[in-house]
């Protein structure tokens, strides 16, 4: 069925290049998944006796007849004392190997694409998926500049994280299962970015949701992890509902679901068309679900229950950016719906600020990074929200670099803490910053690289974060006048005012980002060590297989900025706006519509002031943190005083989870249990109608039987009364 149907694109310049084998990109990780999955199952599976009912008879005298196999992992993150999985060696070859192959192929296709300077996308149709009536969906891959950038990020950072996982998860008995899920995730993610139509993208979309469910709940013997996985899937599903409805609207109004078709139909719509706004709002609901934006962000912090490399890959670099990719992919559609764009930008900005506030007061190192991711995603949505798709994608890329570095760095910190606690059989929380402190003496490499990432995310010049974040802020500022957004309005507030508010929110978020990142660095690496005397000698740098990828990511965080130097630098440092030209063919039309055709230009003076303010904000944040926070005053977690006042509110994440639970979950369960099930089903239909009618017939039967008293006297009476009645009737006739 994978026959190469004669792609209409035969004439396409990429047709005869290595791009022909693009379908191998997703298929390689799929093969990895199948192989690792088989390895995992083969080891764990012992088919039971022919007669299963025997289980309940023999009460456990041979319950655990010494099955040598890998009974799955137990203990949260401290699984290292279990026996190493027998086929771990083979798996650690296949898992990352498949990813590296995929990355190599992606690089080859990238080179071919650069050489070919293609104008329109290369669509590789594999086979017809759902041919019914007017609707005909094919399984087809679309190779263009945007999907190329995403593929490179996914396969590149994916390989690094796979290599890191080899070290991090080496002692986990569920080792092959872990790599199987990770490979499956990469398969679905590639399907998402390479899909040529919305339904195929949706397959990848829910596929990654499924994999994040499996990976978050990887150590499923802990109820908390399993709950977190379930929560992630269901909240994603709410987002998917939005995506589905958007697809229905598209099909009902445009008659097609392929990107090209929708792009062309969207081009024909006039700016501000109702259909486009509706579709975009539903698409944004889907994106919010997947990329953890304000209403539906609650699953991302809980997703930290999964292994750290998973958090790095899924909840920092790739999956969560799917929403941004979706908006960038439907650039033209969003461009003709300014109100929708304003909503996207506004929600993005609000999320950025809101998440940043919570990030200030978290003690778990991964929770801090999680909220920082939510906040940075908010930034990306601001970027694509205001029509600066290149800026959004650029920040997506740089964020992928330094956030992956931060997560993997925290991974190696946690790994080291685990090793130490494991030696002394201490069951302290290895992820709590209050138990860390002064680790720079023990883990210099991680310490240095983490500082690079922190400076990058804070937006200090030279580092990649500065360029991408600054570009978004300047883009917002540039669009305050002379853009479709400015004219449009949201809830009556004119676009311009909104854009200024968004700019302000952006600055506030940047300030808080600098503060909590510096806070994290101070508490983890600086000041006295709080892990404890016995553990201190065991605290040492993670093995090279883990720190290697860190170094690569460190370099990328440093160099990343050069990919899209702002126009202002005028080629002084290097080629200007590389990424902007690269993505021009894909998002160019959409961006032009927003800026009413001409490229937004700010006078040099304003641009310099904007850059100045951004740098000032970053430096101020770091300085404030360094000045106010005293790591020495910190105390180990077990005897740390409880939080009070605003700190407690922030630590308890504004009680949003409790609010959702009380407002949505409990009422639904309550209503469906008491009203729907007991009330209508058991009560009304079953009780009243079904059993009720049965009761009625029995009652009539009982009444009838009362007349048969058995006493002859009664019968005599009945006869006489009957006679009287009959004669009476006759007498009236």
């Amino acid at each position: 069925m994978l026959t190469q149907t004669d792609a209409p694109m035969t004439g396409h310049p990429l047709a005869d290049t290595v791009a022909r084998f693009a379908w191998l990109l997703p298929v390689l990780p799929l093969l990895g998944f199948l192989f690792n999955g088989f390895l995992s199952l083969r080891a764990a599976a012992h088919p039971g006796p022919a007669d299963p009912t025997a289980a309940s008879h023999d009460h456990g005298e041979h319950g655990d007849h010494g099955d040598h196999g890998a009974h799955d992992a137990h203990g949260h993150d401290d699984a290292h004392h279990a026996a190493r999985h027998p086929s771990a060696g083979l798996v650690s070859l296949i898992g990352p190997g498949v990813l590296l192959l995929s990355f190599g192929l992606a690089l080859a296709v990238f080179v071919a694409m650069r050489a070919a300077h293609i104008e329109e996308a290369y669509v590789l149709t594999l086979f017809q998926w759902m041919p019914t009536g007017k609707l005909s969906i094919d399984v087809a891959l679309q190779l263009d500049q945007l999907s190329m950038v995403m593929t490179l990020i996914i396969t590149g950072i994916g390989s690094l994280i796979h290599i890191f996982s080899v070290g991090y998860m080496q002692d986990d008995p569920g080792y092959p299962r872990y790599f199987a899920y990770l490979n499956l995730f990469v398969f679905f993610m590639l399907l998402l970015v390479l899909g040529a139509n919305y339904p195929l993208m949706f397959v990848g979309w829910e596929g990654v949701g499924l994999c994040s469910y499996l990976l978050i709940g990887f150590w499923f013997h802990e109820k908390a992890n399993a709950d977190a996985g379930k929560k992630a899937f269901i909240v994603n599903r709410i987002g998917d509902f939005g995506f589905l409805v958007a697809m229905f609207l598209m099909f009902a109004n445009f008659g097609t679901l392929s990107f090209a078709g929708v792009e062309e139909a969207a081009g024909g719509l006039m700016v501000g068309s109702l259909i486009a706004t509706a579709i975009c709002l539903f698409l944004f609901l889907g994106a919010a679900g997947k990329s953890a934006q304000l209403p539906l962000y609650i699953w991302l912090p809980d997703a930290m229950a999964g292994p750290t490399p998973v958090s790095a890959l899924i909840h920092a670099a790739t999956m969560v950016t799917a929403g941004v990719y979706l908006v960038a992919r439907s650039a033209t559609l969003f461009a003709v719906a300014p109100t929708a764009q304003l909503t996207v930008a506004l929600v993005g900005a609000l999320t950025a600020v809101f998440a940043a506030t919570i990030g200030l007061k978290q003690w778990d190192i991964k929770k801090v990074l999680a909220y920082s991711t939510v906040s940075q995603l908010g930034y990306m949505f601001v970027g694509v929200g205001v029509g600066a798709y290149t800026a959004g994608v650029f920040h997506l890329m740089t964020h992928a670099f330094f956030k992956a570095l931060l997560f993997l760095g925290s991974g190696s910190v946690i790994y080291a803490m685990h090793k130490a606690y494991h030696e002394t059989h201490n069951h302290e929380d290895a992820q709590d910053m209050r138990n860390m402190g002064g680790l720079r003496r023990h883990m210099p490499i991680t310490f240095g690289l983490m500082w690079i990432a922190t400076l990058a995310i804070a937006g200090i010049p030279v580092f990649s974060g500065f360029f991408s974040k600054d570009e978004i802020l300047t883009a917002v500022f540039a669009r305050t006048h002379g853009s479709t957004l400015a004219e449009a309005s949201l809830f009556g507030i004119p676009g311009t005012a909104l854009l200024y508010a968004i700019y302000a929110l952006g600055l506030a978020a940047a300030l808080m980002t600098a503060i909590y990142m510096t806070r994290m660095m101070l508490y983890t690496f600086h000041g006295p060590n709080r892990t404890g005397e016995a553990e201190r000698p065991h605290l040492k740098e993670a093995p090279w297989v883990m720190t290697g990828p860190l170094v690569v990511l460190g370099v990328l965080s440093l160099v990343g900025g050069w990919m899209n130097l702002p126009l202002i630098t005028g080629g002084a440092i290097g080629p200007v706006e590389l990424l902007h030209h690269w993505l021009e063919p894909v998002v160019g039309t959409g961006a032009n519509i927003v800026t009413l055709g001409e490229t937004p230009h700010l006078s040099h003076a304003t641009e310099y002031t904007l850059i100045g303010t951004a740098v000032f904000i970053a430096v101020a944040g770091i300085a404030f943190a360094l000045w106010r926070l005293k790591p020495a005053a910190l105390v180990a977690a077990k005897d740390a005083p409880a939080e009070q006042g605003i700190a407690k509110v922030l630590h308890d994440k504004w009680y949003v989870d409790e609010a959702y639970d009380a407002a949505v979950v409990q009422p639904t369960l309550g209503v469906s249990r008491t009203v729907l099930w007991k009330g209508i089903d058991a009560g009304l239909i079953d009780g009243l109608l079904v059993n009720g009618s049965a009761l009625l017939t029995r009652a009539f039967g009982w009444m009838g039987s009362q007349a048969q008293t058995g006493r002859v006297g009664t019968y005599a009476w009945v006869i006489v009364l009957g006679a009287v009645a009959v004669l009476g009737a006759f007498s009236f006739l």
Partner: protein
Amino acid sequence: MVAESLALSAALFTIGVIGVLTRRNAIILFMCVELMLNAVNLSFVALSTLYGAAGQVFVLFVITVAAAEAAVGLAIVIAIFRHRQSVNLDDINLLKG
């Protein structure tokens, strides 16, 4: 003459009915039924003077039936009496619903 006999017949019939409804003793009940039959016989005879002797033939049949019924009825009462030592009708209610 016929009108008076019809009236008498009706009266006797009514007394028979009242007897059936008020008495508890099985045998007296039978007798009341016999009385009702006699009443009917009377009206038969009374009307046979007008409509020919068919009425009287019919009375004959009524009498034979009454005889048969009395015989069987009393046999049953005796059987019940032997079993229950009482012919009070209210006690005999085995055939209850």
